[in-house]
Structure formats: structure tokens, C-alpha cells
């Protein structure tokens, strides 16, 4: 139960490779923060620095009010769950969970009480006598979490705990982590490369790339107002469509022109752009697949597209479209609203029209890749 503060934290490896540049973040007490980003973005390194498994090359790290840069991992009052579980294979589940308590010279009764309590929370009471190799992946992960929660740590670190599990189990464990978090009310730092997991679990998401923080915000914030192309592309599935377009500053405000259509921007956007004194320029327009509207007939100001691929997902269709110089636009089309006739026409090569309102459009500068409005 403590806050974690990282000020200008930096990690430079011996071979002069900088893994983390100037990391600034304040994690509040009892907050669930998710570090997310592609492989090699420095998220695990940051977590390991917090854990004390990596030396900190620069900056200060505080847990609570204490600077812990040079404190041994065992004295930081943290617990960590590893991607590969890291269970001790030679001792039973019970002893695995009791290991840290025994190192702290707790009495046997206390150890027993805590282990049983943790096992009950995680539903692994019946496996306490087994060795880790006799457990399935999900059970092992539960033991790994159990090993962390018996300690009742101030900060709970999780390094991609679910990525070794199969998809179904991962969904189940994800839900359990949400429940667990309600029971074990402490600070969580969770590292992950899957944006869905990050969105569902985190109070706040820290999106990282190449050792830099790209954006910090609640899941809703990073989804609605991505500050740059990277964040926009990283969050959301299927990925956001990026279209080459032109921003035109007209007499009655800004409008975006693309593929023969011209879409005027709404008032908020106009104000924001005018406030930044932005003129007419080439832009990259970002539109999420779920925000496009598909029209089956000709419509003014709609973009004409050809179907390339039709992916049936059950509740919805993912259509991969091409249009003039844009080679791939993905749209999501709920199947509920479609008539049998419409559905039959959604074949390779058939034409349809898409349109989208101004408020779902994200405008990015092609040079700096920043969001023109939020960035």
C-alpha cells in the first residue's frame, strides 16, 4: 500500500544501449497501472528496475516516500509474478507459497494461516500438496500469484503473467485478476503487450515505445484521444485505419478532403485547430473500423470502396476495402442489421460506400506523427 514515483528514471545497459529514456510517472496508492507496448519498448525493464532486479542508471525511484534506488529487492516490500511463473520446482505448492514467509522467520501458524487464506482466494487449496510440475498452466499461474499475495506487499508487480496461457484461460484469468484486485487492495503494476488486457485491467495505461512514454491515461482517454499515430494504432482492435487526406482551411472552418469526399469538422475540432494556428496541409486521417458507417447505395460525400476480403466474425463482419490509392481500409459491420440480400452482395469485388462523422476522426501530422488536436 504505497505510491510509486519514478523521476527521470533511465536505464543504459553496459553495451551503451539505452532501454529507457527519462521515465516520469507517479503511480498513486492502490492504483492499477498497466505498462503496455510492443516488444523491446522498455516496459519490462522499467518493471524490473522497480523490482530491483536491474540497476537504475539515472533518476530516482521512490516507493512511498523512500528512495529505493540502491535498496535490495527483498527490502523493497514488493512482490512479483513472472511470465514463466518461476515456481520452485523442487518443493510443493504450499512450500512455494510459504517460502517468502519462512525467510522472514514467521511462526508456522502464521505461515499456515496466510498460505491457506491465499490458496482459498485463488481456489488452489486442493493442490497445496502437489509439486508445480503436476499442475496445469493456469494453476501454476495461480500459485505464482498466490506466492505474491501471501506476502501482503506494498506494490504488486506482474510481468506479462498471462502470456504463457492459452486464449481461453487467459480470458478467465484476466477476469480473476480483476476480482483479485478487489480483494487484495494494493498498488498494482502490470506489464503487458496485449492492448485488450491493458484496457480491461488498468486504471491507467502507460503506452511505451522505444524506451519513451508515449501516453499515460485511463483506457477511455487513450482510446478516444490518442496523442500520436503510434498510440492510435496500438490501441483498439482491429487497428485504426490510416488514410492519406488533406486538411483544408475554408472560410467557414476546417474540412477534411479525402477520396473525393469532403467532411467538415465540428466546432470543438475547429476551435482546437484554430487555436493552434494550423493552415491547410497534408494529414493522416485516423478512423477506427467500428466508427465507420457502411452505406449500400450511392451517397453524396461517401467514399466508394471495393471489397477485398470479407472476414466473418460471427456477430460482425470485418471488411477489408480498397479505394483509389488507399489499399486497405477495414470496417466493422454488425451482422444483426444486415438483410440476407445485403449479406449475399458482400463479395470480393463488389462496391459499397463508407462514411464517418467528423467527431470520430483523428488528424495526424505526417511529419511529427502527432495528433493535431490532442497532441
Amino acid at each position, binding site marked *: 500500500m504505497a505510491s510509486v514515483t519514478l523521476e527521470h528514471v533511465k536505464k543504459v545497459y*553496459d553495451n551503451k544501449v539505452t532501454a529507457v529514456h527519462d521515465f516520469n510517472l507517479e503511480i498513486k496508492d492502490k492504483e492499477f497501472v498497466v505498462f503496455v507496448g510492443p516488444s523491446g519498448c522498455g516496459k519490462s525493464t522499467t518493471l524490473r528496475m522497480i*523490482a*530491483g*532486479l536491474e540497476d537504475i542508471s539515472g533518476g530516482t525511484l521512490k516507493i512511498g516516500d523512500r528512495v529505493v534506488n540502491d535498496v*535490495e*529487492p*527483498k527490502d523493497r516490500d*514488493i*512482490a*512479483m509474478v*513472472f*511470465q*514463466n511463473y*518461476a515456481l*520452485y*520446482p*523442487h*518443493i510443493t505448492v504450499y512450500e512455494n507459497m510459504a*517460502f*517468502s514467509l519462512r*525467510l*522472514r522467520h514467521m511462526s508456522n501458524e502464521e505461515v499456515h494461516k496466510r498460505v491457506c487464506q491465499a490458496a482459498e482466494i485463488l481456489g488452489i487449496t486442493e493442490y497445496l500438496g502437489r509439486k508445480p510440475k503436476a499442475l496445469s498452466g493456469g494453476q501454476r499461474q495461480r500459485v505464482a500469484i498466490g*506466492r505474491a499475495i501471501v*506476502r501482503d506487499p506494498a506494490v504488486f508487480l506482474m510481468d506479462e503473467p498471462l502470456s504463457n496461457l492459452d486464449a481461453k484461460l487467459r480470458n478467465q484469468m484476466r477476469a480473476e485478476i480483476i476480482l483479485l484486485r478487489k480483494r487484495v487492495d494494493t498498488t498494482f503494476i502490470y506489464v503487458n503487450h496485449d492492448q485488450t488486457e491493458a484496457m480491461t485491467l488498468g486504471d491507467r495505461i502507460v503506452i511505451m515505445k522505444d524506451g519513451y512514454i508515449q501516453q499515460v491515461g485511463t483506457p477511455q482517454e487513450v482510446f478516444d484521444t490518442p496523442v500520436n499515430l503510434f498510440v492510435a494504432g496500438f490501441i483498439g482492435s482491429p487497428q485504426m485505419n490510416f488514410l492519406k487526406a488533406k486538411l483544408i482551411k475554408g472560410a467557414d472552418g476546417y474540412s477534411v478532403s479525402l477520396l473525393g469526399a469532403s467532411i467538415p469538422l465540428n466546432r470543438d475540432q475547429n476551435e482546437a485547430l484554430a487555436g493552434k494556428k494550423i493552415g491547410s496541409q497534408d494529414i493522416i486521417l485516423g478512423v477506427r473500423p467500428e466508427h465507420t458507417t457502411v452505406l449500400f447505395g450511392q451517397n453524396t460525400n461517401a467514399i466508394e470502396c471495393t471489397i477485398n476480403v470479407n472476414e466473418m466474425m460471427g456477430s460482425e463482419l470485418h471488411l477489408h476495402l480498397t479505394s483509389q490509392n488507399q489499399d486497405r481500409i477495414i470496417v466493422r459491420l454488425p451482422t444483426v442489421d444486415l438483410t440476407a440480400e445485403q449479406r449475399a452482395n458482400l463479395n470480393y469485388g463488389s462496391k459499397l460506400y463508407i462514411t464517418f462523422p467528423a467527431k470520430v476522426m483523428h488528424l495526424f501530422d505526417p511529419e511529427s506523427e502527432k495528433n493535431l488536436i490532442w497532441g
Partner: protein
Amino acid sequence: MSTMKKVPEADVMTDNKSGVAPESKIEKTRSKSGHERRVNTAVYVVLIVMSVVWLTPFVFLVCQSFRSFLNEGGGMVPYVIPQKGFSLDNYKALFIKGFTAKKYLVNDLTLQEFFDTLDGDETLARDNAEAAALLRSAAEGRDPAKDTISSVMSAVQKDESVGQDKRDAASAFMRTVFSAARNQRFENDFRQDFNGRFIPWWTKTFVIGACFSLAVVALCILLKRLNENSDQLYRFRLLIMLGILIAAYLCYVLTIKQQMGYAPAAAGDYVQLGIIFLLFALFSLLAVNSFLKREGKLLQQIPGYPPETAWDKIKKAPVLFLEFLAMFVVMTCALIPTENSDYVGWYGNTLTIALFTAVIQTVIVLSVSYALSRLRFKGRKLIMNVVLVLGLFPGFLSMITLYFLLKSLGMTGPGAVPGLILIYCASSGMGYYISKGFFDTIPKSLDESARIDGATRFQVFLKIIMPLAKPIVIYTVLMAFMGPWGDYVFASYVAFGNVPTYNVAVGLYQWVNVADYQGYFTLFCAGGVLVAVPITALFLALQKYYVEGVTGGAVKG
């Protein structure tokens, strides 16, 4: 066992019924074909010839040593082949001569006997003419039948007018004549007993060796025949072992004590030996018990093997018991201390050195490997490279330096045991490769997890890594134990000349490096077998882990 033989026959019969007979018939005719038989015969002949040729020198050596064992004080005794062949009477004579071998011991001779011996050997007189003349002149005026040569010799030694070197030569000459006299006595006896004539040594070697080898081969063939009837085989083994035991018992009491120059066996010796034999019997019982248990388990794994009845086991038990007992008895004949040899002491030295080295070296090797595998520190790569290059130089290069260093520390000669422990442990950290390789395969996240759980580096090493690295720990212990256990080079020069601090290897070498090595040959063999005991025991106990360890270091298991 006879049921075992019947099993294939029963199969053939059922095959006949079900109409699959032809195949088995072909099998039968094939095995009976002339070609096959000729090949079989040829193989047998080659095997017999080879085993005779191969066994001959060994058998001869054993004969020689037995011979010199009977002949007081050892020494090469010319062999005689009796004209009439080996008759029971001849053997009886041989044993009686052997058991009363004291007769051949020559400590002193009357002047008459001395000069008779000298005259009987032209070469001896010619080669030592000066010394012989000196003794002859000194003996003048004495009574040849009553005065002894040693009294003459002491007179010569006091005579200042003769040069020191001449006096020494005379003394050495006297002893040579003693040994010649002994040989002459022995030969005379045998000439008389066997009515034999002397045959060149190589003929003797080959004829005696070949005879015994043929006997061994015949025994093997007999055993093979007997093998087809297990009951007979057991009876046979039982008889042989009883014979060996009785012989060993008599040897102990009657000859060994005598050979060592003690008084003839007293009643107390029989009791004492009886107690020792009883102890051996206890060990043998335990061995038989575990042997039968294991054998039963192993046999069960053979498909189609008829289940063993209790009677089968009971039949085996006494034979095995006697075999084990004989093994113990024969092995321990090395343990009897004689002048200039202390096998138990050597064994103890070796065991002490090997155990200490095993413990210290294991601790060092594992710590170094763990550090190099897990810790990242400045110069780590450099240390590993330097150690690699240093390891290319043979350890023997440092021998002389080590000797002087140890000498200045007082760790040579009487202090050889701690000195050797120091040498063996000194550079043990350089052997970190295999265990480092093994540690590298243990996921690092286990260390990290334990460290976050609150363990110090040492606790991680002790509580997490050690249990997981059991195979490599076993491997390291075994290697660390075996090195000093079998070492000769370092042990021989560090303990140079100090018999009580020899290790087994040096001691055993000492036994076969003396003039009358035949006298020690049986002891040498027995001592050699005992050396194998701890290593065998260690391997039997730890082989499961050892196999894991050897492969486990290379590939993640």
C-alpha cells in the same frame, strides 16, 4: 531353472498345432547344419587358443607368487616340472614343503656349509673372488663344523687393516651366498621329491601357464554345461567356495603368521579369526539378501521368464553367501600389516584426502560456477578466458614449485596428507565449466523470484539452486573424490619415502616395486580390489544422478 528350458519347446509345440511350424523347423535345421557346426567349432577353438595365450602369463605370475608365498621370504624359485606329471603325492609334498618353509630361511651358516655352497656355484665364486678370498683367509684356523660365518664376518668388520669398501663387499657377498644357499636347499629338496630335472625358464612359464589356462577353460566349459542344470551348478559352486574358504582359513592361521616371523599359530588365533569370519559372514548375509531382492526384481522384467519360487531363492542363498564370504576373506588379506607396509593406514590416508578434497572442491567449484553463471561483474569474461588459457597448461608443470612450497610449509613427507589436500583443492575453481553450463540452464527468473521473495544471494544458492542442481552436485562430488583417490604422481612425490603417509596407489606400487615382489603379488591384487570398493559403492548409489548430471550439463533436461 529346468522349467526355463522347457518354455521354447512348449512354444514350438503350439506353433505346430496352429500351423506356423515350418518357420521353427527351419530354425532347427539351420542350427544343426554342418556349416554352422563347423563355424561354432572354429569359434570355440579360437576362443580356447586365445584364452590360453592370454591367460598364460597371468596364471604363471599367480603361480609364482603362490610359490614364493610358500617359500619363506619370497624370492624367485626355479620351477620344476615333475617327470611323472602332477600326481597327488607331488602336490602333497609341495604343500608340506610350503608349510614348513622356515626350513629354507637362511640367517647363518657354518663355515662348512658356507664354503660348500660357494664351491657349488662357480659363477658366484668367480664374480666375487676378492671377497671370497678375504673370507677364506679370515676363516683359517677355525672349526668349519662349529664356527659360523657371521662370527667370522664380525671379526673381519673389526679388522682395521682391511679397507672399509672391502669389508662392505665381503658383507654383501655373505648375504648373496645365503640366498644361494637357500635356493640350493630348495632345489635339492625338490630334486629329491619330484625327481625332476631343470628346464629353461620360458618352457616352464609356458607349460605351467598353459596347463592352468587349459584348466580354467575346462572349468568354464564345465560351468557352461552345469549352467544347463542349475541345481548341479549350485552344488558345484558350493563345493568350490567351501574349498576356498577352508584354504583361506588355514592360510591365515598357519602360514601368514608364520611368514611374518611370529610364533606358530596358537589357539587364540583360531578364535580371533573365527570372530573375523563371523563378521564377514554377517556382511555376506546382508549382501545376499539385497542381491536376491534385486535379482528377483530384474528377472521379473524379462518377458516370459518363469516366476521364481521361494525354493529357487533358497537354493541360491547358500552359494551366494559362501561366494560373498570368500570374496571378503580374500580381499581382506591385503589388510594384514607387515613390515614396511600398512595398507589400512594408506587406505585411511587416501580416504581422508579424497573426502576432504571432495567436500572442499565441491564447495569451491559450485560457488565459482554460480558466481560466473549468475553475477555480472567487471572482468568476468576476462577471468573466464584467463582460466581457460591457464587450464591448457598441464598441472604437472607446477610439480617442482609445489614441492618446494609444500616443503617450506612442512607439508611433505610426514605432513603429506594435509599437503595433498591443499594441492588437490588449490586450483579446483578452474573446473567450473560443466557446472556453470548446468547453472545456465536453470532459469534466471527463479533466482529473481527468490530474491524478491526475500532471499539473499547465498540463500538463493542454497535453497533454490542446489536442490535443482542435484545432478551436477553429485557429478562434482564424484569427480572431486575420484581425482585424489586414484592419484599416484602427486601423492608419490609429496609423501616421498614416508611409508605411513603413502596413499593406496603409492603403497600398492611399493609392493610390486620390491625385489621379492612375488611375495606381495597376492596382496597387491587384493589391495587393488579393495581400492575399487568406495568408488563402486559411490557409483552404485549415485549412478542415477550421475547419468543425469553428465548429460544435464550439456542439454537442458
